[in-house]
């Protein structure tokens, strides 16, 4: 007991003795759970931006920015809400980079962040449902909505001269959101979706699903699933029974396992994934390498941009109050103004201090549209000679 008291007293002392001008930002990502392998690179990305701003010494009169990590678990909405609650009330963060997955993000936003008036910028929640959510202007995302991916996918399919497809999706928020918005987009352009049906991940047998898809027919099969889960089972079944010859792969299916397990059999199939290129991305990758982590990790660059946007909006409104700086997020992200790339956050702070406009481009060519989400660039891929090849960016 005595030891415990002493320990807590010591803790309280160090906490009180920290810099007076220390601004905390929360990072709420799924450090445990199904996407635990992606989270570290994302958190590193966000912390890179914070370190850069702190090092510049130009933020809010020389304040430092400290990250506080919290585990959103990706699948457990209650745990994610508790994490965000703790970040806000116990740690006193002024803004949150997160959440990670669509369902958990919606829950923590509605249950905690909105009642408490906290800004959340998610690097990776892509469900179309988040676009129309009434969020009091507190929620933004640096990743594109799957509704946007659906439009891009529709264009790519139509350009291949295909007008009729069958769709199967993994039975969760991501799969269903993508499949439904794709069906809407595809039919709006005059295409036909012969069947739109779910498959569950981790099931022992997929012959029933493949049989239904084959009977419905179509010129191609869109698999909105995961390449290391049920998506592979469906693909295997469809290839073996000769049900389909051309496949369309959205982001969850584009991965090394696709080349490895199916390479020669899916030649001529195509797909797309959110990804960017250009000077901003290269600068981010170089900075990430210098900081000692892999910047090519999925959504790592988006996390950098999310953290940078929060801090630039704070600087632009000269306030750390979320209800004040939320108005400035769209301003700093979009034109007009001087374009800002990764590594130039110090320069951006100078410009803001001088009263000039900035247009934050960041690592992923940020352009916030609609209710505050990235327009997004997509990498169109095609399987050629057993390898996934980039056709172009769009």
């Amino acid at each position: 007991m005595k030891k415990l008291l002493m320990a807590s007293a010591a803790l309280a002392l160090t906490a009180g003795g920290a810099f007076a001008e220390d601004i905390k930002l929360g990072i709420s990502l799924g450090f445990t759970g199904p996407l635990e392998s992606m989270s570290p690179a994302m958190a590193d990305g966000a912390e890179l931006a914070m370190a850069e701003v702190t090092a510049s010494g130009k933020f809010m009169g020389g304040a430092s920015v400290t990250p506080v990590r919290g585990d959103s678990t990706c699948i457990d909405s209650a745990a994610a809400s508790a994490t965000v609650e703790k970040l806000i009330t116990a740690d006193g963060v002024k803004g949150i980079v997160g959440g990670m997955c669509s369902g958990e993000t919606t829950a923590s936003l509605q249950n905690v962040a909105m009642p408490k008036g906290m800004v959340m910028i998610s690097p990776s929640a892509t469900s179309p449902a988040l676009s129309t959510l009434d969020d009091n202007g507190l929620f933004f995302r640096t990743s594109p909505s799957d509704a946007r991916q659906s439009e891009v996918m529709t264009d790519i399919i139509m350009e291949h001269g295909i007008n009729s497809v069958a769709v199967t999706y993994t039975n969760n928020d991501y799969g269903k959101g993508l499949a439904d918005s794709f069906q809407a987009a595809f039919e709006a352009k005059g295409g036909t979706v012969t069947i739109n049906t779910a498959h569950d991940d981790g099931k022992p047998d997929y012959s029933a699903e493949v049989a239904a898809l084959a009977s419905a027919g179509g010129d191609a099969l869109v698999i909105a699933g995961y390449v290391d889960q049920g998506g592979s089972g469906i693909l295997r079944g469809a290839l073996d029974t000769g049900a389909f010859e051309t496949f369309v792969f959205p982001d969850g299916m584009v991965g090394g396992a696709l080349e490895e397990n199916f390479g020669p059999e899916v030649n001529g199939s195509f797909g797309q994934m959110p990804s960017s290129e250009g000077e901003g991305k290269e600068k981010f990758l170089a900075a990430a390498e210098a900081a000692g982590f892999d910047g090519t990790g999925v959504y790592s660059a988006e996390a950098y941009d999310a953290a940078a946007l929060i801090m630039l909006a704070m600087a632009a409104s000269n306030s750390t109050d979320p209800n004040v700086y939320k108005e400035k997020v769209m301003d700093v992200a979009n034109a007009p103004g001087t374009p800002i790339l990764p590594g130039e956050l110090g320069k951006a702070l100078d410009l803001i201090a001088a009263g000039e406009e900035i247009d934050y481009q960041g690592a992923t060519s940020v352009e916030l549209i609609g209710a505050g989400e990235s327009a997004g660039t997509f990498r169109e891929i095609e399987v050629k000679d057993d390898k996934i090849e980039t056709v172009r960016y769009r």
Partner: protein
Amino acid sequence: MDLLNAFIAVLNYVIVPATAYGAQLALGALGVTLIYGILRFSNFAHGDTMAFGTGLTILVTWGLQAMGISFGPLPTALLALPFGIALTALFVLGTDRVVYRYYRKVRAAPVYITMVSVGVMFVMNGLTRVLIGVDEIRFADGERFLISAREFKTITGLAEPLAIRSTQAITLVTAGLVVWALFWFLAKTRTGKSMRAYSDNEDLALLSGIDPNKVVMVTWIIAAALATIAGTLYGLDKSFKAFNYFQLLLPIFAAAIVGGLGNPLGAIAGGFVIAYSEVAVTYAWKKVAMYLVPGWEPEGLLQLLSTEYKFAVSFAILIIVLLFKPTGLFKGKSV
């Protein structure tokens, strides 16, 4: 009317896959039913015994491949199978010695032993993952297809493809051989007869001088063999993933109960009933209907139930059977 194409469509998407899947379930259900009939408890660890046995078989397969041994057009795993069975049998006998023997000695109620088997299931679950990992492993080599979809189309000139994987054929042939051997063993050999006697009436069997330890040991060895064969055939046909075997436990139990727990013939029938109902009830008949009635394009898919409900189908059948024939289709023991 295009009967031939309609027939090929049903054959390719319903009959061939459902038959192979049914044979895999039947082998699994045979093991469950054997344990239930003779040792008198529902062995929940059976799915993970399958995973464990398959994992060992894969390790031996890799060893054989590294030594440059192959089985011609057949998968190398078939050569590794006897080793996998032997090792799994040893492991299962060890489990019986360490865990189950005590509960038999104190004559614990079957429901306690069932709960004990859940514990064993979790331990085996972990062991399998330590042994071979959680990733998906494909270990089928040799010829992949007996008839591939593209070949069939070019040879016959039909619009509908037909594919038969060699693993599907191997599954059926092996399952047939195993079932024949098991029935011969139970009906003709002295040990088999004593097992049946022990199953019918334990006390009478003991009075007539049957050694219970031998019966228990042989039962475990046969169950381990059935589990390893079923698991390896399933893994060859689809792929090996430890988690999938745990999922396989549900349809296997459904098959064993529908057929009648404790009745080997029922386990086989149950396996096919469950597999066919999963695939056929959720099949979309649109294409077949279009071949049968020319010029008619149905609006919908002519699908009785969406594929999400395929598990519900097997459990609905289970409930109906239990309501009207509580002992299952083939007169097993009532649960």
